[in-house]
């Protein structure tokens, strides 16, 4: 068999897919929940980065994984809350506010890194503890499946669990009902005394929570250190993944899995003699194509004529 195919149909590849998927799935859930509440959150990049940083920082100083976890989550949720404050209270445009916070997170983490390490260079990094990997009892011994599913970082399982948590929050709790009501008709929600801004803030903070887990996984699972701009655009790809998944829990999961496959594939064929730049380009190209197909499908669902399609675009877009 062709060595490339062989490696792709290997359990290692499937394992890698799940590994690569984790830091996309978590922020994608974060984007999805804010979308349901009717806001667009493109600050996941900053949220992940700042959570990744504080997790590492606290692990370096306390040596406690638990405290690192709390610190990372607190930092991510706090950044999301700041975005919420500026957007909801001070009426800043949420996209521009998020751009500012992404900038802030990137600058602030390096600034702090310098204060701590005293190294002005851009390559400095901070060593960290890592969250443990878990071998699932029983399943680990099943051939193939065990090799793929068992032995991941604990945060990977948490990520999958979060899909369920997302589902329960959105569809089985009063908060979820309110989030959906606020997203569908904020005036309606306000008219029965629901504080729309507060619900939107909760949704943002939940997105901060999901994003923070993703960030912690990056610096304390995927690798074991913090380095500048280590999110490398994952917070943005998360936007594509949740869009592709229709903001549904399962949809977002499957979309993230797809991005995981593409990313893992890019890493795998990098070993062959193909220019690495072109391979690294693939996931983004696929996302763009997926976005195109997705938009086409949304349009096609409505069998109407050209002019009406345009109108639909007019009204649906933006």
């Amino acid at each position, binding site marked *: 068999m062709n060595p490339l195919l062989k490696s792709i149909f290997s359990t290692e590849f499937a394992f890698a897919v799940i590994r690569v998927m984790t830091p996309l799935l978590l922020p994608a859930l974060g984007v999805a929940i804010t979308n349901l509440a009717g806001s667009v959150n493109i600050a996941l990049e900053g949220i992940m980065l700042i959570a990744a940083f504080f997790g590492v920082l606290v692990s370096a100083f306390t040596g406690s994984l638990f405290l690192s976890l709390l610190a990372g989550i607190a930092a991510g949720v706090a950044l999301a809350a700041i975005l919420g404050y500026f957007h909801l209270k001070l*009426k800043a445009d949420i996209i521009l506010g998020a751009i500012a916070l992404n900038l802030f997170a990137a*600058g602030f983490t390096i600034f702090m890194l*310098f204060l701590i390490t005293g190294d002005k260079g851009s390559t400095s990094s901070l060593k960290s503890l890592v969250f443990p990997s878990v071998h699932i009892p029983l399943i680990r011994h099943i051939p193939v499946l065990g090799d793929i599913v068992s032995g991941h970082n604990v945060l990977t399982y948490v990520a999958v669990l979060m899909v369920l948590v997302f589902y329960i929050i959105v569809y089985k709790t009063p908060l979820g009902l309110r989030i959906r009501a606020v997203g569908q008709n904020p005036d309606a929600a306000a008219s029965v005394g629901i504080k729309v801004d507060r619900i939107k803030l909760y949704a943002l903070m939940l997105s901060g929570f999901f994003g923070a887990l993703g960030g912690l996984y990056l610096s304390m699972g995927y690798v074991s250190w913090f380095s500048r701009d280590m999110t490398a655009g994952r917070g943005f790809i998360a936007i594509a993944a949740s869009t592709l998944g229709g903001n549904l829990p399962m949809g977002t999961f499957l979309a993230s899995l797809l991005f995981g496959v593409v990313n893992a594939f890019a890493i795998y064929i990098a070993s062959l003699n193909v*220019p690495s*730049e*072109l391979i690294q380009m693939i996931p983004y190209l696929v996302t763009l194509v997926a976005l195109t197909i997705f938009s086409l499908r949304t349009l096609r669902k409505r069998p109407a004529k050209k002019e009406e399609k345009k109108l639909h675009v007019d*009204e649906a877009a933006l």
Partner: protein
Amino acid sequence: MEKFILKNFTLIRTIIAIAIGVAVSVLLIYLISATPSGSLKYFFVGPLLSKSRLSNVFEMAAPIMLCGVAIAVAFQAEQFNIGAEGALYISAAVATAFAVSTHMPAILHIPLTILIAACVGAAWGFVPGILKAKLGASELVATLMMNYIAYFLGLYLINYHFRDKSAGYLVSYALPETARLGQFIPGTRMHWGIILAVIIAVLVYFFLYHTTTGYEIRMTGSNRKFARFGGINIIKVVILSQVISGALAGVGGIFEVMGIHGRFNWQTSPGYGWDGVIVAIIGRNHPILIIFASLFLSYLRVGGSVVNLMADVPTEMVSVIQSVIILLITAEAFLSRWKYRITVREAEREEKIHESAS
């Protein structure tokens, strides 16, 4: 006085936001620097003290300015375009490829290279433009993806096909002299691209506010349904705004290659596109204000690098200040209570005048 405040409220708020940003930087320097007064001096006065540093401010402002007006054109059409970065990168790469592989007199070589950059940028903007206009695909996601694609594609082009292996690091072949923009102040890197950038920004102002197409863009951005109702072809406008935006950003990139480095030397994306978003926000999408906003931003940046070099404050401080300024400027309600109080006072006063008159 109060009338004046009400009338120029947004401008005043912008200035206050900038002032707060500057105050934050002073605070940060006092917090972390062992020699705060020296650091402050480096940061604020540093950029102005030498000819070459002052020149740095202008050099850096040029591409930011062009990306800023590029973003502003899209924002005015209410298109959330964050694709200037990608357009700039890929345009510079392709136009560099063109410039190093052709030979012709400068009078042709310079305009053709710029034209190619503009065309590539326009093509780059066309993709999200048409996806948005025809399919309703989010331009935010599309331009983001286009940024990454531009980066890797540009890098591939330069590294695999136009790389100068004799240079010690990853750069393209040097541009022939016929494809360079001259520098006009000895001892600095002030090049004609900077002057051109200002001229282009002014032209974009004229375009947006004094031409029919500019009017179409602004109306479409202000209320798309209204524009369509009035007979404006909004599909065309959406695509056109992205195309123009891409072209402007593309020109911004090649100016820097042609005027400063003489080679394509960006192994990482330079970030001017994101800076463009920042200055578009600070300049409130107005090309003339964007000229000043980009000078201000690069002044901060140069100050940041001076203090980074000469003292113990990392240059990333500037990112923190920038984010504070942007947050405050975009915060519509920031200072609104103040404004409200003034408005109420004004209304009451007019009421009194009214009553005493009747």
